[in-house]
């Protein structure tokens, strides 16, 4: 099997696994549909933006939970922001973790929040890693002279 074909298959398998494992959802498919020849970097630029934005939020969350007197409204605001951006990106597991986090904020459960923050960081770095791999595979295909397959993964 020639190299482009191999890379493309690898890409399709990898992408499909992300959807199957619930790391990404259909919103990521929608984002890719918005990319065209006039905006070939739309998705990866948006993902970069998401990484930067998320790091800031995680820092803010860490700080907010380290205060002598924790302001759970502030914590909740940060989580809400993270939930929104993750939802817009199709980062399903991150988004779901934010939902759980919000409940803990409502309960003013500090220990719960601290544990959840760790899990949230784990999920974020996981999706970050996956996306970096995805874009690397894309680049390899393009450099080998091939086209990146559009993986329209639907949950039936």
């Amino acid at each position, binding site marked *: 099997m020639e190299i482009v074909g191999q890379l493309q298959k690898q890409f399709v398998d990898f992408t499909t696994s992300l959807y199957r494992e619930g790391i990404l959802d259909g919103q990521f498919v*929608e984002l890719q549909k*918005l990319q065209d020849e006039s905006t070939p970097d739309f998705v990866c630029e*948006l993902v970069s933006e998401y990484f930067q*934005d998320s790091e800031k939020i995680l820092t803010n969350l860490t700080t907010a939970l380290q205060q002598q007197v924790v302001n759970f409204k502030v914590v909740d605001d940060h989580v809400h922001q993270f*939930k929104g*951006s993750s*939802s*817009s990106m199709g980062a399903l597991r991150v988004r779901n973790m934010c939902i759980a986090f919000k409940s803990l904020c409502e309960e003013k459960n500090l220990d719960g929040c601290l544990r959840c923050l760790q899990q949230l960081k784990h999920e974020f770095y996981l999706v970050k890693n996956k996306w970096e791999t995805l874009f690397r595979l894309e680049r390899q295909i393009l450099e080998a002279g091939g086209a990146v397959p559009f993986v329209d993964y639907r949950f039936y």
Partner: protein
Amino acid sequence: MSGGVTTEMKFHVLAVDDSIIDRKLIERLLKTSSYQVTVMESGVKALEYLGLLDDEKSNTKSHSNSTTWNQNEIQVNMIITDYCMPGITGYDLLRKIKESTVLKDIPVVIMSSENVPSRINSCLEHGAEDFFLKPVQQSDVNKLRPHLMREKEKGKENQFNSINKRKPIEECLSPDRTRIRFNNDLVA
């Protein structure tokens, strides 16, 4: 198309959202539908852009002799705003627009990540054209065109007659003019 100038007329949408991700997303969605887009990161900046911030008192004065409702001659055909924003919320923005004598006819659409029926009803009751749940999709944006076309038809009669004495069916604007007028030959 009348006239010799084939200027493409686009609907101009003002999008307001405090999330940078959502701003980029809505901008791309709107541009995909061939709208001209201006994005603002806050309700305050949006009000400033619309000329509503410092000029609240002058809104009650007569603007009837001019459709240039602010010095910048900015023409906005629709406003789409996030609901939850720090400072001035999307709801506040909606109220201010609908209370403005010059801006009240601009269709306003609210976006929110939360499906709260009372919130949705409240926005619709206060004049919002539509309410989109986030993440906003292409199918939502496709729903905007009828609202814009309807306002264009309504606006044609009101706005043209007060700008000048020319007939409503206008030729395309000359290249050095920046103000976009409504006309029949909207190419979008």
